[in-house]
């Protein structure tokens, strides 16, 4: 069980520590675009779109890691006062009845659009842009999967930990 948990958390942690550098990369790219545009009067749609791609990748692939870090904001007015068991119950119910169904639905309903996009290897958003809209759309199921995996890890941890405490 511990191994499954560390694999699941590892996936989130690795994606997180990788994609966080995209925040810096998009900052540098955008700054480069600014210099090119304002100092040298040169602009490129593809360069501007690269920032958009990095931005989208950052927040879509970062969602699972954020769940691991408990960085998704909670309104813990009442939650904070609960015992560990109470918190676990809320989290368990939330993961099973709110988060997981929602992410499964995102997967189900975005699938046709994503697979169609792959079939035609959908081109750029605007003329002269990056020809990889199919990759951009793939971020939607990737987001759902990463969040689902991390959610699974949270659920297993709650169940596993309460088991060991009872035993």
């Amino acid at each position, binding site marked *: 069980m511990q191994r499954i948990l560390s694999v699941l958390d590892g996936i989130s942690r690795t994606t*997180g520590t990788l994609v*966080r*550098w995209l*925040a*810096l990369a998009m*900052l*540098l790219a*955008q*700054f480069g*675009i*600014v*210099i090119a*545009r*304002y*100092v*040298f*009067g*040169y602009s490129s749609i593809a360069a501007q779109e690269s*920032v*958009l791609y990095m*931005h*989208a990748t*950052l*927040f*879509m692939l*970062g*969602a699972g*890691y*954020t769940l691991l*870090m*408990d*960085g*998704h*904001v*909670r*309104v813990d*007015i*009442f*939650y*904070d006062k*609960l015992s560990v068991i109470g918190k676990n119950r*809320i*989290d368990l119910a*939330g993961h099973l*009845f*709110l*988060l997981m*169904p*929602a*992410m499964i*639905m*995102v997967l189900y*309903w*975005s699938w046709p*659009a*994503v697979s169609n996009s792959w079939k035609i290897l959908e081109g750029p*958003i605007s003329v002269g842009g990056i020809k990889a809209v199919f990759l*951009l*759309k793939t971020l*939607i199921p990737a987001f759902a999967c990463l969040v689902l995996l991390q959610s699974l890890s949270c659920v297993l941890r709650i169940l596993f930990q309460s088991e060991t405490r009872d035993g």
Partner: protein
Amino acid sequence: MAEYLDILMFAALVLAILSGFPVAFSIAGTAIVFAVLGWSLGVMNINLLGAMSQRIFGLLTNNVLIAIPLFVLMGAILEKSRIAEDMLDTMGRSFGQLRGGLGISVILVGMLLAASTGIVGATVVAMGMIALPTMLRAGYDPRVASGLVCSAGTLGQIIPPSTLLIILSDVVSNAYQQAQYEQGKFTIDTISVGQIFASALLPGLTLVGLYILYVLMRGWIRPEDMPPAPADVPRPPLAEVAQAILPAILLILAVLGAILSGIASPTEAASVGGIGAILMAAVKAGANRRFILIGVTCLIVLAIGAGVFPVRLQRSDLGLGSYMLGAGYVVMTLIGLAAIVLALRSMIAQKVLQPALNSTLTMTAMIFATILAAGIFSLVFIGLGGEERVQDLLSAMPGGATGALIFSMLFIFVLGFFLDFVEISVIVLPLVMPTLIIMGHDPVWLSVLIAINLQTSFLTPPFGFSLFYLRGAAPKEISTGQIYAGVTPFILIQIIAVTLIWFLPEIATYLPSVMF
């Protein structure tokens, strides 16, 4: 029951969020549960969910919101490199014997931290950690100190370049366009981030002014509440003040100026702000200081040069002069870039950059997951007929346009107890704003009014977000009652500000009308 599903859905949303489960997934989960419920009761076409991928894709390709991670990164660097902390400390000392000097610096720093304001909680907690202990040590009354931190922590959200104003402007612009379509107009006006920034500037500064006035008056009436700095602590020398405060202020002014004057888009300006923050942090850390300062000078000269003598490489009629100038610019660019690389290297070595990137990632992922979830929620809400219900409700309000606005403001105020700024902007505003705009209210004025209204809501006991987050960050000696007492005068100030803007809309609409 089936025809009231939309109302039940909203109630369920509030319950799910109050349970303490992460907000983004509470929103998405409630939406899905009610979509399935509506479908099984035969009141909703489940295929509407097919529009989900189009909505999410719209979020992925939204050009306005790209500025958010850049601004958040800028704020995170200013915070993690302790530039913000130094600023507060130096500013407080430079007010010297003035009663309330430290309090005023807390307000001013809260205002300057606007860029990093993604959620109300984050700034209040940050201010609570930095400013509260400083004030208590200086002998401030705990009520005054906690009131100041709460209100200064929420101040940032309505002062440009707050990330919340960026989200708000995107929402308002969409609502405005929708309203124009429904009125049958063919030429559609839009609203830019710059316009919203410009409209929020004067109201925000008015609030800052009122806050400072209050601190000065309180220090005068009840001097024991805020003792001045002890006489033996000297005022910091001018050089230290210039070093700790000026760069950050200049950077923020440059970023804002570029956006407000229409020279640069918010995303472009934000990238300059982020790079500026990196260079400042590196200079403060002291590694390769001289070279980095040379690089900064080059970049500033470049910025001025580009404005006065631009080089346009894509033109064919370039003379020798332009080539020489271009070559000079290239050299300066390279020196500037080298300085940035060195700055980054030292920040990575000192482990300042990684935590800043981490908090940027989690903050951005949190904000966008919430927006994404809210998109699914409103899809289902519309599918259940909620949008029409809201429109009917608003048009049935007694008192016409004013009545509808008062009702919406009260509704948003109450919702502010349960939902944060982002959720209200992306779930509630798209429902009420088009109707309010069609009734004749000015969209820019509306957004400022709503922003300040929300800020007031976050300060109001017993549920106000700001109080609640401060409770978590404040030391145990401060009682909840003291926090409530401390924040009351600020709530009154907020109400004064809302009234002022209600009756003098020019405070919000004047700047955008002359600038755009």
